[in-house]
């Protein structure tokens, strides 16, 4: 109990410190609007990658439909705050987006999660496309031209808090009864089944939580960038999130943080290279995959438990 409190306080201090560091840097002028934009994009990518990592890295279900759920959140927020631009409606819209994403994830997950590996990837990709095409053809969403002038409520502190909240939820889920069951499903479905674990239920749980976090990221994106179109949420977006997860390490939340940050910085630094940017970007990916195929972090996590007790060799639990 005491030890747990100590680690939790450490994480809390880290989160608060990060917040004030960012605040100070903006105040001093080190972080201008260009860098702030980069930091917020990194934050949104972290939310997306952490959620997808839960599905792929921890429950072992290869989903390629993350952008679809992101679209659900983005449009829920855009439509609601375009009509009534108040902060209250903005927060309500996040919840609405999450609820719709959960319903969508259940509808998508119940038939498709019975599939395995590549088949599941293709099925979830198809499901995300369906979501995108529905949005593309609706009046309410302004069809293919998308929505503009969405009021900006998702400032960097809001995104920062959302990164913390979604990460805490995902990490705490992983280190609980449900998360262990999901890990068992990833490791060996037949063994999990014969240990009395409802394999399908825990796959679905991970999938739904992943979708909910994607919706939060979508809401942030819509209200920060202030313009969205269905094409922002196509298969390339799903793959971009997948790249972060794979690069950071499948099964490492810390890895998703590191990879999202590195890619965000690389992306921003290469902005002036124009067309060469994508080539260099791809090259970085290829090099990392050659020299560290398990991703930057492998399956390791940053853990205060391990920092304080260097003797215990195994990666401890976050929080």
């Amino acid at each position: 109990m005491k030890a747990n409190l100590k680690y939790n306080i450490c994480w809390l201090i880290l989160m608060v410190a990060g917040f004030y560091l960012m605040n100070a840097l903006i105040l001093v002028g080190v972080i201008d609007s260009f860098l702030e934009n980069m930091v917020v994009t990194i934050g949104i990518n972290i939310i997306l990658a952490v959620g997808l990592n839960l599905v792929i890295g921890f429950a072992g279900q290869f989903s390629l439909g993350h952008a679809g759920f992101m679209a659900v959140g983005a449009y829920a927020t855009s439509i609601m705050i375009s009509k009534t631009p108040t902060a209250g409606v903005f927060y309500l819209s996040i919840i609405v987006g999450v609820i719709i994403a959960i319903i969508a994830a259940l509808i998508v997950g119940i038939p498709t999660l019975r599939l395995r590996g590549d088949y599941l990837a293709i099925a979830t990709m198809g499901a995300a496309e369906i979501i995108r095409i529905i949005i593309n053809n609706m009046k309410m969403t302004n069809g293919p031209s998308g929505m503009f002038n969405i009021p900006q409520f998702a400032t960097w502190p809001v995104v920062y808090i959302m990164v913390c909240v979604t990460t805490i939820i995902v990490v705490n889920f992983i280190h609980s009864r449900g998360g262990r069951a999901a890990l068992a499903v990833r490791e060996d479905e037949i063994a999990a089944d014969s240990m009395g674990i409802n394999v399908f239920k825990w796959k679905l749980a991970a999938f739904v939580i992943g979708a909910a976090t994607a919706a939060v990221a979508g809401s942030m994106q819509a209200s920060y960038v202030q313009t969205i179109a269905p094409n922002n949420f196509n298969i390339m977006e799903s793959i971009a999130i997948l790249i972060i997860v794979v690069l950071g390490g499948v099964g490492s939340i810390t890895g998703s943080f590191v990879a999202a940050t590195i890619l965000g910085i690389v992306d921003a630094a290469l902005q002036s290279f124009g067309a060469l940017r994508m080539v260099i970007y791809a090259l970085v990916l290829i090099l990392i995959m050659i020299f560290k195929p398990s991703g930057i972090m492998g399956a390791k996590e940053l853990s205060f438990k391990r920092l304080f007790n260097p003797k215990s060799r195994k990666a401890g639990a976050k929080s």
Partner: protein
Amino acid sequence: MTTLLNVEDLIKNFGGLTAVSDVNMHLNDDELVALIGPNGAGKTTLFNLLTGVIVPSSGSITFRGSDGLIPLNGMKAYKIANLGMARTFQNIRLFKELTVLDNVLIAMTANYRENFVQSVFRLPKFYKTEARIRQEAIELLKIFDMQDDLDQLAKNLPYGTQRRLEIVRGLATKPKILFLDEPAAGMNPEETADLTRLIQQVQHDFHITVLLIEHDMSLVMNLASRIYVLDHGSLLAEGTPKEIQNNDAVIKAYLGEEA
């Protein structure tokens, strides 16, 4: 002595092949029964039928639950497991990338509850539950001398210990029947002797029924109170170790026809 599990006229066809045909058997409370037979006799298929991994073509399996007889045909494997049936696998199926402790905790999943809100917001109730089941898991591992390996990854354990962990994991589900599929496979005589003691201890301490598939006859004859012999998918004989040792049909199945 009452019947805990009853199997009647069980048949399993894979296309044109009959892997298990017309098997009748029963398991009583607190007994250790062995299932033997030459390779390909259908022993593991029978195990898979009993634990719900595959669905029988016909016949019935009934389990005596706390409130009456429960038919198991077509029931999902995890539900059968939750009724009180645990198993180990012929080709070890531990959660390899997870720690020894996690392997045991996962097996206990059905025996405790944590709701989503409690675990996500780390309410005091969550820590209390975690501490309790962790303690339970450690106690169980202690019985099997594995308390020093808690944080080891399952894949890094020596072979014999992996087999042992599979049994511990099975016991962690609090079963009424434990199915052991060739627990001594690949073990040297010393490890087999350890295993024999272990199985006796398990059965004695936990008061459970054990059904054992094994090729090692010394282990079977030492442990089992009854033996079923399976050959080409059907039951060849049933009886005490002594009866089986002197059964002509069994000797023929194992050693072949006299010239």
